[in-house]
């Protein structure tokens, strides 16, 4: 009897401790239909733009502080953008504003900022202005 009780309690313990995380695969269409940024809770265009900008900002700050090179930076940017439904990040102003914000948070100086602006905007004044706008919008030194 004691052995059976031990077995029951032991199996309960094993199952209770048996992994508190669920694996990702699902064949339930409700889960599938809610698997996009904001579509189920009614995220607006403004919110979507802000969410994308925030991720670009975080990414830029993390990347710059980790010391990566420029080519790989733009490659990573494509990955970030795709998760927000953007394939052509070069045509979205939020990209450049977010980069500017991230550069400021990473502690980039104004001189370094000019290099980033030149490399990213490629002579497009509107893009350069968006980066500057993002940079100026973050409070802090520099």
């Amino acid at each position, binding site marked *: 009897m004691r052995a059976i009780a031990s077995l*029951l309690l032991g*199996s*309960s313990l094993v*199952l*209770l*401790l*048996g*992994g*508190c*995380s*669920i*694996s*990702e695969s*699902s*064949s*339930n*269409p*409700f*889960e*599938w*239909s*809610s*698997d*996009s*940024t*904001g*579509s*189920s*809770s*009614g*995220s*607006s*265009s403004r919110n*979507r*733009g802000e969410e*994308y900008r*925030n*991720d670009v900002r*975080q*990414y830029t700050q*993390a*990347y710059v502080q*980790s*010391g*990566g*090179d420029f080519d*790989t930076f733009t*490659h*990573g940017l494509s*990955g*970030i953008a*795709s*998760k927000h*439904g*953007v*394939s*052509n990040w*070069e*045509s*979205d102003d939020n990209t450049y504003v977010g980069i500017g914000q991230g550069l400021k948070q990473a502690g980039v100086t104004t001189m370094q900022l000019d290099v980033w602006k030149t490399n990213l905007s490629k002579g497009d004044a509107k893009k350069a202005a968006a980066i500057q706008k993002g940079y100026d919008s973050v409070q802090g030194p520099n």
Partner: protein
Amino acid sequence: MRPSQHRRVGLERVIRLLLVGLSMAWSAAAAAEPRSIDYLYIEANEGGSSGGHVALRFDADTFHFQQAGEGLLRLRRDDAAAFLLRYTLLGNRPIHESRIAVSDDTYDRLRAAFTRRLLVQDAQYEHLEALEADVALVARWPRRAPPEAAGGDFGAAVRAAGYFLPDGFSGDPPAGDRSAALLALRARIAAAYGEDFVPDRVRALRASLAVWTPRAVRDPAAPLARDTYPSFAPTASTTHAEQLEALTALEVLDAAPALRADAYRVAADMPGLDAHERRSLTRFAEELSADLVSLAASPRPDFGYPLLLGLARLAALEASLTSGRLVLLDHFAADAPAAALPEGGQRTAALDALAAWVRPPAERARQEFFVQDHFREADYTELETAWNRWLEVERARQPGTPLRMERGPLLPGRAAMRREDDAAPLDAAIGRGELAAARAAAAAYRARLAELYGYNLISRNCVSEIFATIDAGLAETAPGGSGLDESRRRLGGVVQTRYSFNFIPVVSSAAVERNYTTVGRRTLPSYRQLRLAQLAAEEPAWRVAVRESNTLTATAYHPDPRDSAFLFFTDDAGALRPLLGTANLLVGVADGTLGLLTWPADAGARLRAGWSGALFSLPELAGVNIRKGSMAYVEPDLLSQVAGSGAAAQPVVTAP
């Protein structure tokens, strides 16, 4: 209406008012605090989370750690309402929320810490996928000398090519109609960069691909860290894919074909485009065309996919304006998996519920898209995604039509196989060497990831990683100082998972309540609890209790096909649990035994369900409930309740 009906309606109104009142009180309490974050403890259920689960919610974003296969843990960020749908309704699990009061600064820092960790981890895992793709690419790359030569035609899937080209396409222009919009775009690009611009780029890419062969990554990756963004050079598979996408995009631009007939969907049963929408689409097509002119000349190595996708979307906009109806690209891949739906009347009910869930976002996305002054790709992607899901549900109503699903990135990527007749073959010995190197690189990197994210029941699980991320975020605020001191100062205390039982989800929830500055606690009921409360308001309690106690007669149970075999619900059984658990055990054993006979016909489904059912009955004999049953679908009225609870209020979109 009879008096008894008046009473039922009255009680129902009371319950609804109560639920709304609780939500408003919760929201009001939250609004009075500067900021707050919510610690969520999700009760156990059978499957991969039999010990429960935990998450941390920042307004509309919920962060949590899941097992990602091969014993690795991965951070996820889910929409708050989608998270509740998945766990409380479909998963049928109550969620216990503890609201932690924090300052604006603490909120921002912690949210940034979780976001950063997510982005870093995504990049690290994506590199593993790239290395594994290298192995696949080298393995099938043509060899110069038999017998190691790869058999059959060599080809590669090109994202978004499927909107214009069939599988097995080469570089030759496709036959068929031309798209006027793409012809006009081609002329614009020629005017901007010269007539030879596109042909020259095509020639250069073909020449590059003709001599290109894959080379495995040999340099060991730099040390990985949780909060240091990694910098990886593109691997062979990435470079190869980008070159093919670029070449295909430019060839399509040059040929300007119309969309394939199976590449798009028409909202035929929905209202046609009104005058405002037509004007907007005309403007958007012009803006998209201008973007594509710039993109065609972009030095980005990965310009090919966005250009191909942009061409397809431009053609879809053209088709919309021509037909007067919304025409959108079909998001689903040719081999998209099909949803496991119930049969018969339950299938219709499931599709009705799903339509009620996906229709509002589709209508909202349409409204919102046409309010904008300028074309924003993210808004168009949202429109495509939402409408594809709705149209797919409506399509699946036809008998014998599966309901396709497409998870993951929002961007459409209908691929087509490109034949690579000119690929430079590898020398057999070199090929073997590259394959061995590619496998070694992938294995070594996977081992590095396991060091960082390998799942451990006690020391590295969904609970410990939440608090590790909190600690890391707070430690940044006090360089050289103590993360523990910062935790006490900013959160009111410390929750440690090492050398304690706090790694267990339910225990961690109590620890949060005990140690942090919590200003509220509430429990979100599970699907079954909500439905039983509704039923109890309409019928005698004894009738509801008897009918809803078992899986044979319960109306508040739409079984998920993956559920184990059981007879009685025991989450609310109290003292009867061991008795009912005994019945469940017998049912599980019987079903599992029968499964041995049905194995050839059902691929072992009944066998698994039976013995799994028996296993999860064992705790019930000891008075412990884990299994609660999961739902294949839920009713629309409960969906709207979930959508309104927990997530931030959204602005109403109005047309100009």
